[in-house]
């Protein structure tokens, strides 16, 4: 695009357009009530996790430092959320546990998305042989049931936060790969790709300049829907004792609540908050994800009208 005064290069124009699209998208998003609820909820929880040191002293997580506390104290006896079988503050566990749930959920999702996107783009774009091989591998991974694989890997690798992230990431990438590949295939058919080719664009250029921007919204929506699955998986793994035993997490709280007999004691302050916390995080992401999907998928938009 040749301009008269030469101040607006094509690149600037593209960026301006992108910025406008984002602003437009944000205005659209704000109109969605469920989307805003989800966003606010998520920000609150993230805020709580980040502010953990301010909200509860880390020492209250350790049994040795909680010896002076009464065990099984109700919230009225030991605000704000009572204590567990070892006298540790439930509130501290809750607030610090949020960090692990969020951290694992996000980190594992990032791994899954990055891996899945790379495989998806390659599978959609490459020649028949490579694509077929990649898709076969993806399908094989989809078939392996998550929990047994996670259990086995965690048992062999050893329980730690890093390993849990790895396990969840490794088992979650196939669905993203399939989604991305389908999108890439439809994009490949589009004329503008063919025309760029005719103009001499290389594969790498096409992938970064054309395909990636088009696939990105899809990846974003997929991300917000993968995080809840990752968080739920982490909870289950921690509950089964495969998480890091030294760090507080909501799943671990449930595990300890169960094995220490909180259920028969009726110590609801121990097992209710973690579950509610997980529900809140998952619901927030799901609401955000649905709102994003509606904005980014034009087909869904016409359904609303």
């Amino acid at each position, binding site marked *: 695009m040749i301009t008269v005064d030469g101040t607006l290069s094509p690149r600037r124009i593209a960026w301006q357009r992108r910025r406008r699209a984002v602003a437009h998208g944000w205005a659209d998003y704000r109109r969605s009530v469920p989307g805003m609820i989800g966003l606010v909820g998520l920000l609150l929880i993230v805020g709580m996790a980040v502010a953990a040191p301010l909200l509860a002293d880390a020492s209250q997580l350790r049994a040795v430092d909680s010896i002076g506390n009464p065990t099984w104290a109700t919230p009225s006896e030991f605000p704000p959320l009572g204590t567990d079988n070892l006298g540790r503050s439930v509130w501290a566990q809750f607030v610090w546990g949020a960090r692990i749930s969020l951290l694992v959920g996000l980190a594992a999702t990032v791994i899954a998305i990055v891996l899945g996107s790379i495989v998806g783009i390659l599978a959609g774009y490459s020649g028949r042989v490579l694509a077929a091989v990649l898709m076969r591998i993806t399908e094989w991974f989809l078939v392996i049931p998550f929990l047994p694989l996670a259990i*086995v*890997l965690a048992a062999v690798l*050893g329980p730690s936060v890093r390993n849990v992230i790895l396990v969840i990431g490794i088992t979650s990438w196939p669905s993203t790969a399939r989604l991305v590949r389908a999108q890439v295939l439809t994009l490949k058919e589009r004329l503008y790709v063919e025309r760029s080719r005719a103009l001499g664009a290389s594969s790498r250029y096409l992938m970064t300049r054309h395909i990636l921007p088009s696939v990105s919204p899809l990846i974003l929506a997929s991300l917000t829907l993968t995080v809840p699955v990752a968080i739920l998986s982490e*909870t289950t793994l921690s509950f089964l004792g*495969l998480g890091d035993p030294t760090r507080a997490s909501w799943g671990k709280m449930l595990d300890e609540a169960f094995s220490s007999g909180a259920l028969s004691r009726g110590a609801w302050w121990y097992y209710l908050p973690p*579950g509610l916390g*997980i529900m809140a995080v998952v619901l927030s992401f799901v609401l955000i994800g649905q709102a994003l999907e509606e904005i980014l998928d034009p087909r869904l938009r016409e*359904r609303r009208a």
Partner: protein
Amino acid sequence: MTFRLVGLKVLGALATLAFVVVFNFFLFRVVDSDPVASLFRGRNLTAQQKVELRSQFGLDGTKLEQFGRYLQQTANLNFGRSYTSNEPVMKEIASRAWPTIALVGVSTLLSTVFGVLIGIAAAWKRGSATDYSATGLTMATYAMPDFWLGMLLLTTLAVSLGLFPVGGISDPSSDATGFAKLLDQAHHMFLPALTLTIAYLGEYALVMRSSLLDTMREDYLTLARAKGLRDVVVRNRHAVPNAILPVVTLIAINFGFVLSGAIAVETIFSWPGLGLLTYDALRGPDLPLLQGLFLVFSASVIFFNLVADLLYAYLDPRVRTG
């Protein structure tokens, strides 16, 4: 549906199974060069003990020899002996399979039926109170960990209200037989089955709703109405048969996964199935048992995926005849 189509799909499934078998082997060996050391970490073993254990686990010899032995044994369904009970692994698995199959079978049936009905009601009356409450309910159940739901049901219905037993499959003190025994087992199965049903019906409801919403935009529904059909008939005779196709495959696929996903729920209710077996095996860790369980779970997923595939091909006339 041609034999060729069926044959190809079966072949594909077998290939995937073969991959899993190989994967199973390497999972325990390649990840860690010395499985014995890592599996028995924290326990002081003498060099002699280590050699013995290696031999016992079939870890002596070259990798290739181990692999060969592994393949041979797997073909004979011989997965070695459980470390904790010293019984053959297959025997352990076989004896514990039925409680899981019963639990998962009943739960899947109930969650499918209720989920589909809820999904249909929500989609057909889109935007109404029915739709919002159904969607809200399904989102809430999707967001909660299934075993946490089990915990809540356990405390309220079993511990506080005493309506149901706290765990196990049957009352150890009674020696009822026949029908009375079955009734007792059903009584014990109620809470875990309720947990799994509620936990999974959300997914069916959401998929059915989404599928029906897509179907509702199709022109053949307008045509059906134009013919003078009543609304309910249009829904049940035209919309639902089309919308339900994806749900059918989902059911079949899920069955394979739920089989292995009931681990946490079985633990909560001490339900003596494969899930609880896995949880206990984890404590060891009981390597041969875990390996056998992993293979069984994977095989069931592959099998049910194949069933889902074939079922869809049969039900959709476009695939069946086209």
